[in-house]
């Protein structure tokens, strides 16, 4: 619960300082992760699904949400190629499912991916096949975004949701 609420606090802070002001100014805000991350991750940690959704009801509903989907093995391979050590919470080590970080990651993130799949229908996320090349993905992304772009400025916000 504290994990969930701390992230919600951080999100609220960024929403009020980094997201709403540029939206008011007519800018496009690109959010690297959003409330959906919390929906998937917190439910996997055993927090009530409906409660998390109500908690985040102060959030602005994005005009467009893109979900980059990859199978768990590819995601793990990519991470291992870049970093030696998996992050404690990212691997769900706090849940005590496995003492092996890679195994814990596979179990935890596997469940997180299942939660994302629920969200796709519930919130109408646009699924992008993130297995393909960056160029291919970017082509899809640009096509999806084009209806929303008409010469506005862009603000990027990121971090942990």
């Amino acid at each position, binding site marked *: *619960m*504290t994990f969930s*609420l*701390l992230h*919600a*606090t951080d999100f*609220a*802070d960024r929403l*009020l300082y980094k997201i709403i002001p540029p939206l008011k100014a007519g800018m496009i805000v690109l959010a690297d992760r959003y*409330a959906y991350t919390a929906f998937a991750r917190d439910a996997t*940690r*055993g*927090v*009530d699904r*409906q*409660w998390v*959704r*109500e*908690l*985040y*009801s*102060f*959030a602005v*509903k994005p005009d467009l949400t893109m979900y980059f989907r990859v199978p768990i093995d590819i995601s793990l391979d990519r991470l291992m190629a870049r970093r030696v050590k998996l992050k404690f919470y990212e691997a769900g080590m706090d849940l005590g499912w496995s003492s092996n970080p890679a195994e814990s990651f596979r179990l935890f993130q596997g469940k997180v991916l299942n939660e994302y799949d629920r969200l796709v229908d519930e919130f109408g996320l646009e699924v992008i096949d993130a297995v393909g090349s960056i160029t291919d993905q970017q082509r899809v992304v640009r096509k999806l975004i084009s209806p929303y772009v008409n010469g506005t400025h862009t603000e990027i916000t990121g971090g942990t949701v």
Partner: protein
Amino acid sequence: MAPSDPRVEGANGEIQAGRYYGRGIPYLPIEGHPGKLIAIEGTDGVGRTTQIQLLREWLEVRGYGVAETGWTRSPLMQPTIELAKSSNTLNKLTFVLLYATDFADRLEKEIIPALKAGFVVLSDRYIFSALARAGVRGIDRPWLRSLYGFAIAPHLVFYLKIDVETLIGRVLEARGMDFWESGMDLKTGDDIYDSFRTYQNKLLREYTSMADEFHFRNLDARRSVEHIQEELRRQVALFLEPAEKPAEAALAR
């Protein structure tokens, strides 16, 4: 993202003492925990802490295990809340969420384990202070009730009721008016006295509006410490003693 059912479950039916108000914490079932949760509520400077100290001693002498918990006292969140209060970055929404995080930490780490172990848990303030403060600051009430749906409904909620005039006298005698207790963040004016009066008046109205919903037992906080304590003990004894009788309690009669 509108909440589908923003009401605390208890609000449309019966609140059940010792159960979660709303959706609760699925990974922490609490049914059957033998402990009792007693909350003492009331605004700043009303005498809660004094009453809790006296009640604790009395309960311990009678053979009860007593645990105490108080608002913003969680080891996880206290430094963060103090820091946030001293800077100018706090927004009313992040304020509410920080308090909720503090409460969640104490609930999981202090309150629920103590209830499981059969303690009487005395809570110096409970979620009602948070609901009142946030309500005064214009945060959506159904959202707040849904947020605190993970809280446990106390077995007893005592509300130390006071009027603003008496409160002002006490606070000035004791330690003076403080920035947050005066609601200076609401910027109703530069005068701390006027702000205190306006803010505390609103807070008291919020508490009053919750009295029925959450089964407050009102205690007249204008009475003497001894008188209030006596009434508190009488009601606590009535509640606890049919439920469990420690050897000392039985002998004492």
